[in-house]
């Protein structure tokens, strides 16, 4: 992109200084204009060539530029065409501040924030009329005096009515895909009212039916009417880029509907069970204890059918109360009171639920919104559906989060900006001790946010920084300012540079060996958020409010780091990823990979899966995507049943080295192949954590499996690679390990075999712990 200097702008305190400088520069003054928005007089020099614009700011933010002293503010570059300049800049990850160029009379203008130019505010100018002798140019519309972009740039936001109108128009033109994407974007950005969410659900259900796409099949059964909730669920899932089709059962007919579903042979991936309290709280049903037992027994029968006979995953919603009822609020919470009954019931459900199921705590969900808003008595009596529209939409979000966690997996990394995200102010200006943290109202809010994040790390979530700053400036507050709850050690990755953030995040993904879909992005700057949305659509972008006091709430609303259960290993994870980053540095100093691996003194611990391991094994089955040869998401009952067979083999492998204890990193499940003339072990599942890839742990796993197979008298091992979007990493694993390909087809992938007898152990640098 070729440009020429159009003008430079200088902010001055008064008109006297304008004349002084003009004389000093030997320039004549030309036209002037008062710009209301900036409360500033703008005076241009006259004559040929690039000019100078003097800005006399009377009040407003321009008057505060450079602590009120003024000075060189921005330079303006004239380009032939703003649109192509925009495209060219976007390729470099540099957004223009305004979504559309600003019409400034004879010229159109747009701006680049100083964050992208290392400190220079740049105005791009396109001449639309012959250049007058002294062009009138408005001062930069959004150029603030700091180095960050300014907020509130949400001009693309459309009203709900416009969105649906546009979607209908697209559909009527036969562009159903675009309509569906438009609606997805609206859900994702939180632009819709609860009514709008429900409407999207209806749109999308129809769209998915018409397009015959492969969907996640969800059966929703309730003791109340479930239609609104399930329609909203379709919308929530669609916002999360997942095609979900729901089927509703008859109101309060749960067991019969389940048995009918089994008999129909139709496959469901997930069953959602939604209790309502009319039976639990009905009068004249004996004392609390007996009621609870009876109600729990009912759901246990349902769970049995769902997990064993339907092999579906289970989402169990809890019970709730709407009001204390005739007991009054004092007695309702005591034994035999309705609130007490509901709470006891939820505790029982939680305690007895199959471990691989997800419990949606309705009492928490409604409490957060407020029961008076969450429920609507008219709707209950009109339709036997107790939820208001906002309540139904909110409950659907919670259910969707449960499905996301047990079927798709967890988010792992939270990427944070620094200035005005983790603290107030710009560290490059204030220095490490001057950032706003604690003390002021905003400072306390930033501090509370940091404390919240610190707790997230102990939940196994990795924190990372992506900041446009000088690396030293960015690190200093964490090292020197004791008021910051977060320390450098709390971050698994720290990217402070002037590169576009998309580049920084991709670099992190490589270092941490995680997919981009494990990332959540939190940045106070709307332009950066838009940049990530457009360049890295897999990354979840949180809509960050302007008010730091609401940061925690905004982050929590998406429930991105919800998990089935916290294992001790979750807590260790941050430590391990950090160790891996250090190891990579060590790696460079070794001559050969083998030398390096040998220096790690890796120890492997192979164990037969027992009950204590099962929750972690099921967790890994649920979330491992890359090193996973068959991606079978077995639930806890399925694994237990598989391993109950005496011919089955279930192994876990734990790895430790001199840097870290990785804990349980690999799971191998093998069953006897039916109807063969020689005993053949079929590898049902082989998965491994990516943290230990490329360290001969694969070979160690195979050797361990071979040994177990020999001990049970197997003669051959049969393996399978079922390709998914994410597991290309292991496409040739079996080839590499000396297996022969026996069958290939597009449905079941590639089948391999290897004799146990001729198998020399594969070479590994992992020693077996004895």
């Amino acid at each position, binding site marked *: 992109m070729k440009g020429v200097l159009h003008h430079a702008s200088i902010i001055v305190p008064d008109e006297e200084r304008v004349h002084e400088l003009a004389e000093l520069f030997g320039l004549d003054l030309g036209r002037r204009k008062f710009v209301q928005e900036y409360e500033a007089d703008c005076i241009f020099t006259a004559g040929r060539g690039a000019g100078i614009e003097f800005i006399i700011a009377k009040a407003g933010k321009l008057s505060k530029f450079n602590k009120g002293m003024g000075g060189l503010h921005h330079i303006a570059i004239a380009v032939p065409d703003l649109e192509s300049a925009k495209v060219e800049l976007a390729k470099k990850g540099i957004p223009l501040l305004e979504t559309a160029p600003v019409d400034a009379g004879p010229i159109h203008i747009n701006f680049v924030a100083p964050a992208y130019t290392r400190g220079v505010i740049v105005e791009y100018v396109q001449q639309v009329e012959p250049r007058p002798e002294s062009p009138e140019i408005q001062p930069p519309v959004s150029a603030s005096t700091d180095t960050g972009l300014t907020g509130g740039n949400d001009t693309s936001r459309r009203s709900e009515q416009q969105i649906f109108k546009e979607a209908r128009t697209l559909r009527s033109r036969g562009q159903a895909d675009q309509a569906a994407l438009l609606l997805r974007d609206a859900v994702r950005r939180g632009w819709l009212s609860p009514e709008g969410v429900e409407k999207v659900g209806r749109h999308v259900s129809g769209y998915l039916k018409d397009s015959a796409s492969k969907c996640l099949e969800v059966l929703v059964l309730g003791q109340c009417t479930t*239609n609104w909730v399930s329609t909203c669920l379709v919308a929530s899932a669609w916002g999360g880029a997942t095609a979900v089709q729901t089927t509703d059962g008859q109101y309060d007919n749960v067991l019969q509907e389940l048995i009918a579903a089994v008999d129909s042979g139709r496959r469901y991936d997930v069953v959602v069970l939604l209790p309502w309290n009319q039976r639990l709280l009905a009068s004249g049903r004996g004392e609390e204890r007996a009621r609870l037992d009876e109600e729990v027994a009912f759901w246990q029968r349902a769970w049995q059918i769902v997990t064993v006979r339907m092999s579906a995953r289970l989402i169990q919603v809890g019970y709730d109360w709407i009001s204390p009822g005739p007991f009054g609020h004092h007695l309702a919470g005591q034994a035999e009171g309705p609130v007490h009954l509901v709470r006891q019931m939820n505790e029982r459900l939680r305690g007895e639920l199959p471990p691989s199921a997800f419990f949606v705590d309705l009492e928490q969900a409604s409490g957060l919104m407020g029961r008076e808003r969450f429920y609507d008595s008219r709707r209950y009596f009109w339709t036997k559906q107790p939820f208001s529209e906002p309540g139904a939409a909110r409950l659907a979000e919670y259910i969707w989060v449960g499905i996301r966690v047990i079927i798709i997996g967890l988010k792992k990394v939270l990427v944070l900006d620094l200035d005005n995200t983790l603290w107030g102010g710009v560290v490059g200006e204030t220095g490490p001790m001057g950032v706003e943290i604690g003390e002021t109202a905003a400072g306390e809010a930033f501090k509370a946010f940091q404390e919240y994040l610190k707790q997230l790390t102990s939940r196994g979530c990795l924190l990372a920084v992506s900041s446009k700053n000088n690396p030293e400036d960015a690190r200093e507050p964490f090292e020197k300012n004791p008021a910051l709850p977060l320390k450098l050690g709390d971050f698994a990755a720290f990217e402070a540079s002037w590169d576009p953030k998309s580049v920084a995040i991709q670099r992190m993904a490589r270092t941490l060996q995680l997919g981009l879909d494990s990332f959540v992005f939190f940045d106070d700057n709307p332009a950066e958020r838009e940049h990530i949305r457009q360049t890295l659509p897999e990354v979840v972008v949180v809509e960050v409010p302007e008010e730091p006091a609401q940061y925690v709430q905004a982050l929590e609303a998406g429930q991105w780091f919800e998990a089935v259960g916290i294992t001790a290993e979750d807590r260790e994870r941050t430590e391990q990823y950090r160790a891996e980053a250090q190891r990579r540095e060590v790696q460079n100093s070794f001559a050969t990979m083998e030398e390096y691996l040998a220096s790690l003194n890796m120890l492997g611990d192979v164990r037969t899966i027992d009950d204590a391991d099962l929750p972690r094994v099921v967790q890994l089955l649920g979330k491992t995507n890359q090193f996973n040869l068959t991606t079978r998401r077995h639930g806890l009952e399925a694994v237990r049943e598989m391993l109950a067979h005496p011919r089955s083999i279930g192994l876990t492998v734990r790895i430790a080295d001199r840097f870290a204890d990785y804990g349980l990193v690999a799971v191998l499940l093998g069953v006897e192949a039916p109807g063969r003339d020689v005993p053949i072990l079929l590898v049902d599942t082989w998965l491994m954590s990516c943290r230990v890839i490329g360290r001969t742990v694969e070979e160690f796993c195979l050797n361990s499996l071979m040994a177990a197979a020999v001990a049970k008298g197997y003669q051959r091992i049969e393996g399978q690679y079922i390709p998914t979007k994410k597991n290309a990493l292991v496409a040739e694993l079996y080839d590499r390990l000396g297996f022969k390909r026996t069958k290939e087809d597009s449905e079941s992938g590639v089948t391999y075999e290897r004799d146990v007898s001729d198998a020399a152990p594969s070479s590994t640098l992992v020693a077996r712990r004895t």
Partner: protein
Amino acid sequence: MNRDVILNKLLTVFRDVFEDDELKISAATKSADVEGWDSLRHVSLMLNVEQAFGVKFTSSQVASLKNVGELIELVESRLASKSGEGRAR
């Protein structure tokens, strides 16, 4: 607000609820005439009509409607009692 005005305003609500910009209704229109007008959608429709006119219906009023004509009458009577209240104050 006369009946034509009410009908016109209702038309906007109907088109929005049933998502059909071409939808036409008259006093004689029944639920069977409109695609998707089932008992559940009926409730959504009523809630939207309430919102559009700033009135509230009772459970029995909602349950007894036979066609759009009756809905117009219902809206009319609720608006009248509303403005009556206003005068009384």
